[in-house]
């Protein structure tokens, strides 16, 4: 820890973001700040930072005995290897299986062309929707203060 580090004094904006997250602003100021959150990304991120800190700190509760066991287990190399291998294997297996099913259906000569096209459209459509939802989640993640709560 740098003994000589001088912590800079907070800016007006910083204190405003903190006061908003703490619910300490008067109604008028609160409305103004809410507008700024909608318009200014940087300001919104600061508010989200204070909200996350508040939520994480207030829900930090006492250590339970089973927590020690869980923590130790999650650090163990064998456990981590088992889980990683399990996920990789299951994911690859499922994707490969579904890819094979698609391929078999498309190759199937007894089925006419139309249902194959419909199937491709449906699958393709669902995949695009999934991508859009994933993007949405990744985009809003920095603003979500509730991801670090234990119980």
């Amino acid at each position, binding site marked *: 820890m740098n*003994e*000589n*580090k*001088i*912590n800079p*004094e*907070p800016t007006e904006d*910083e*204190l405003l973001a*903190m*006061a908003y997250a*703490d619910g*300490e602003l008067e109604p008028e100021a609160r409305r103004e700040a809410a507008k700024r959150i909608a318009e200014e990304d940087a300001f919104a991120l600061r508010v989200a*930072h*204070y909200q*996350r*800190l*508040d939520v*994480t*700190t*207030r*829900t*930090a*509760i*006492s*250590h339970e005995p089973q*927590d*020690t066991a*869980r*923590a130790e287990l*999650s*650090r163990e190399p064998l456990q981590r290897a088992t889980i990683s291998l399990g996920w990789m294997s299951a994911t690859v297996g499922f994707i490969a299986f579904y890819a094979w099913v698609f391929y078999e259906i498309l190759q199937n000569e007894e089925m006419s062309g139309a249902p194959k096209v419909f199937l491709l459209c449906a699958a393709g459509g669902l995949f695009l929707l999934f991508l859009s939802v994933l993007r949405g989640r990744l985009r809003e*993640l*920095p*603003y*979500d203060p509730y*991801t*670090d*709560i*234990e119980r």
Partner: protein
Amino acid sequence: MADSLNEAPGEAYGGEMPALTTQLMGQVKAGDEGAFDQLVSTVTPRGNRVAHTLVGSREDARDLVQESLTKIYAARESYRQEAPFLPWFHRILRNTCVSFLRKKGRVRTRSLSSTVDNDGADWEIEAKAPTPVEQAESVDTSTRVRAALDTLPLKHREILSLRHFEELSYSEISLHLGIPEGTVMSRLYHARQRLSERLGDLLEP
């Protein structure tokens, strides 16, 4: 006396505590012992919780609060009517906690960092409370928050305790500690900065 730190038969809620305790102390100075009992039951629950955040052990926290109240009773003659009680109580409690931590060798002094308020060097003392689990990677969130809190200077732990665990507003904290609201905000900002630094990646989404 309540067994649990959190049972508060006599505890007053936020708004009236500063005025009530000041009034009671005035009566204690005048020789009213019943008033002292009421004062004790009013401030002990919160005092216990704040002291717990400062020293880390519930047993020690209880003892330190008792010790502080004993000191207050002994000094009742010197209490000034016009001065609010709570800031005085918190100052004595802090000093008692600091002496305790010094004696146990769990204190590490640092050079003064620049702060807006004019407290003495005592406030930059960090207490190294022994934690069973150090800051390891896969330990759960709660433990890491507690461990991070334990490494902060007393002044910051105190204000974080009042804000996050006691859920006092800025104006209530200002009345408790006897500092202006601007200082409350500044000190809270610095405390949270340090806490964020200690928590590091935990706060990344």
